[in-house]
């Protein structure tokens, strides 16, 4: 697991400004501290799934979400995945919020970059396994995207035993702790054409978002 420096900069709102040497050095130090102390963990299970217009049946769950249905359209199997880089990032954010605010913001950004690249790694393992069976991956889709309600976090957590296996728990409001964690559904399809990358951002209503990425 590595902190993608470019992504960390993007999360920090970097848009080509001049960066002083001490800032770059600070980012490097934080990234190294995070890489050294984080303990990434993940778990995923594969299930058969049934997709109708507004409903996805998966591992005994019935998920009502139009956006997820569109994402999984035509898939007969899907993977439920949870991953975290652990508690270090949260600890560092608390620590640096006291002693050095810029560092706290950098941990926030570097941690976000870190969990994304870690989930990419996990997804790569899923992809290889799927490929050996002639299956392709749909883009991963998480609770909170579009109309896929965060309420389903509870069920996902029960199915994957997230708390016991990899140490992520849910707050009353269904947010994950440690905060640098991800849950997602990944559809598996036999048709390569349908697995084309759809940019996550295209679904989001916040069109003026600073971090919005348009499709290539």
């Amino acid at each position, binding site marked *: 697991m590595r902190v993608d420096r470019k992504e960390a900069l993007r999360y*920090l*709102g*970097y*848009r080509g*400004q*001049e*960066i002083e040497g*001490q*800032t770059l050095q*600070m*980012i490097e130090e934080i990234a190294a501290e995070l890489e050294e*102390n984080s*303990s990434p*963990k993940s778990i995923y*299970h*594969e*299930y*058969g799934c049934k997709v109708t217009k507004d409903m996805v049946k998966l*591992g*005994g769950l019935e998920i009502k979400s139009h956006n997820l249905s569109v994402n999984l359209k035509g898939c007969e199997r899907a993977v439920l995945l949870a991953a975290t880089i*652990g*508690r*270090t990032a*949260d*600890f560092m*954010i*608390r*620590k640096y*919020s*006291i*002693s*050095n*605010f*810029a560092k*706290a*913001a*950098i941990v*926030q950004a570097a941690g976000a970059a870190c969990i994304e690249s870690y989930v990419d790694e996990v997804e790569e393992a899923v992809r290889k396994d799927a490929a050996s069976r002639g299956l392709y991956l749909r883009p991963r889709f998480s609770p*909170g995207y579009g109309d896929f309600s*965060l309420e389903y976090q509870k*069920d996902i957590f*029960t*199915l994957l035993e997230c*708390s*016991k296996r*990899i*140490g992520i*728990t849910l*707050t*009353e*409001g*269904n*947010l994950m*702790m*440690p*905060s640098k964690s991800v849950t997602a559904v990944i559809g598996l399809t036999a048709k390569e054409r349908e697995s084309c990358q759809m940019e996550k951002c295209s679904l989001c209503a*916040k069109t*003026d*978002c*600073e971090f919005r990425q348009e499709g290539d």
Partner: protein
Amino acid sequence: MSLKERLGKELLFFDGAMGTLLQERGLQSGELPEIWNMTKENVIGEIHREYLDVGCDIIKANTFGANPFKMKGTGYSCQEVTAKGIAIAKHAIVESGKKAYAALDIGSLGKLLEPLGDLSFEAAYQAFVPMCTAGEHAGADLCLIETMNDTYEIKAAVLAAKEHTSLPVVVTMVFDECGKLLTGADMEAAVAMLEGLRVDALGLNCGFGPDIMKKFLPRLREITSLPIVVNPNAGLPVVVDGKTSFHVGPEEFAGIMKEIAQDGVSVLGGCCGTTPAHLHALVESCRDIPAMVLTDKNRSVVSSYTHAVEMDQHPKIIGERINPTGKSRFKQALREQDLEYIYKEALAQQDRGAHILDVNVGLPEIDEVEMMRSVVTGLQGITDLPLQIDTSNPTAMETAMRLYNGKPLINSVNGKQESMDVVFPLAAKYGAMVVCLTLDENGIPKTAKGRIQIAEKIIAEAAKYGIGKKDLLIDTLTMTISTGQENAKITLEALHYVRNVLGVHTTLGVSNISFGLPLRGHVNTAFFTIALSQGLSAGIINPNSEEMMAAYHSFCALNGSDGNCSDYIARYSKQSEQQKKGPEKSGELRLFDAVVRGLSDSAYHAAKKELENKKPLEVIDQELIPALDQVGQGFEKKTVFLPQLLMSADAAKAGFDAIKEHLKAEGGAQASKGTIVIATVKGDIHDIGKNIVKVLLENYGFQVIDLGKDVPPETVVEAARKHQVKLVGLSALMTTTVANMELTIKMIKEEFPGCKVMVGGAVLTQTYADMIGADFYSKDAMGSVRYANELFASDGR
């Protein structure tokens, strides 16, 4: 013989998995196994019987997840499901006609404790209590706290079991492939805490099969004096179509377990994936192997939530700075509840190389118990160093020990009977190492012999509570040489005897030696070095003093405890390069430039210098604010990058600190431009954006009441009322919590129609902000400063 007596004397056998067998019998994924106690009692009983028939001595009742959180909404209470689980197990034992024990099985609550999660330590403790009481009442023979991965949660469970039952307590934990719990705690930290809490046995379960678990055992045998329990899975779980299976068969399982037994353990059993067949093979192959012989490892350790610190040949530094004695700034911080000041002291000492932090927050005019509670909780969220709880107030001491996530050091007990009667029971209950002052009813003896006699008295009294020498740290008391030339000699002679003849570790508050003398550092370092060579195990010093740290590191290099001088070299090789280059000139910067460049130390010193000739208000208006404006505008134009804005904000804050100190010295106070309440709304736990807004608003002269994160609407309204504010700032990151933002705005507007609300956060847009009735949408932190400036300027305060 009772179970407690048998533990550690003969090899005993736990049973295997329950959940795995229930799944084979139709338990659905996501269904709670404990409910079967109520609906399929016979199935549970049959499984117990199968394990009993193959020779298991201890069966785990089906109560693992019967805690109040998991039982909520099932239609059954924690107590009835727990009691029924025990009853089924007891019944199975009676039916089998064997001599066996029923364990009240206590698993994790599935929630994360503070400071990381949202469950308080006390709430976790309260959740375990009904399980423990119902379990004992129903006839359980022991409490098994298992599959745990957080020492803090374990402590809550152990305290619940110890305070509400008289049952033996066994704890098994899940370590990852690096030998750590999910919280990052290593085995040494967990063992230190559990031995302190006086559990009856400890060990490993779940996570891995016996092959990997075997690798952790040599280290565990080295560090624990307690019986060891090993309950592995039947290998790693393999999930196919949502069905979990385990692939290590009974013979293979038993084969590795036999090797483990031969190397030495006290109790063997199984976890996920193991079946009566596995346990049959295990009992058959290990039945005649004797249990590991228990020996006292005699380790003197304290621990934090991540690691242990052992008193040994390598002396330790206890940082003394968190203490108001003789420090007016610290006293002010305590009176004003300025915890951030205290936390900064902690982090600075850690950076300087302290191993343990002393925490003294006593002042006559404050509530020491509440302050201790806040500070210990806060410190555990930002530093992983073990803490030394320093108080003479027994309630504050107990509060801190209870909340402490690890095995603390306590400062202190002394030879007075009254002191020992109060402190030793607490140390025995919560598990602590104790600093022992060699004074008693007759004061401080003027001879080394007198102090040694008190040390011996304290050692004997501690033993009555089961507190061994290894958990004492004797302080032979430093008295200043300015009032008695013999003082250093007396202290050192006693110290040498205690360490080398009595064989007990030692500590000293070093700097007292020079009280009343000029240039105290000279005497302190010399005395410190001599004390170290006489057997000082842990010096209570100021780690910010470079000469003390230099003496310490030199001593360690000289006495051989710093292997290859590697610490010394790591610490000083960079410094010697810098000395060659000459000192940096950044101290000469103007305040304006220091803030723009984000240099906190320079800004502080530059502000001090400017205050010699200028009025505080001039310094603010001519230097600080223009610098902040320049950086802020750059940020809005995207020429300045966020971390640089924040470094400038920190530097400006350092400048303001200098001004505050100046005003304080002159008896004045800085005028506030106005008061603003800010909060992250209910349900949302992201607060870094809100914290950035706070720092910037404070820099621009506003008084900010920060309510924190996950704040209910009522609390925001209450704060608005209390402080009569005309501006509230709210932050939300999630779409789901924007609803709570809307509700908060509605409630504020109902009660205070004139109060403005500004909002910000990742999901918000101008449209959203308009929709939920906010007065201003700020797309970044500088926007909120601009809005506040305009609002407060337009109509005065």
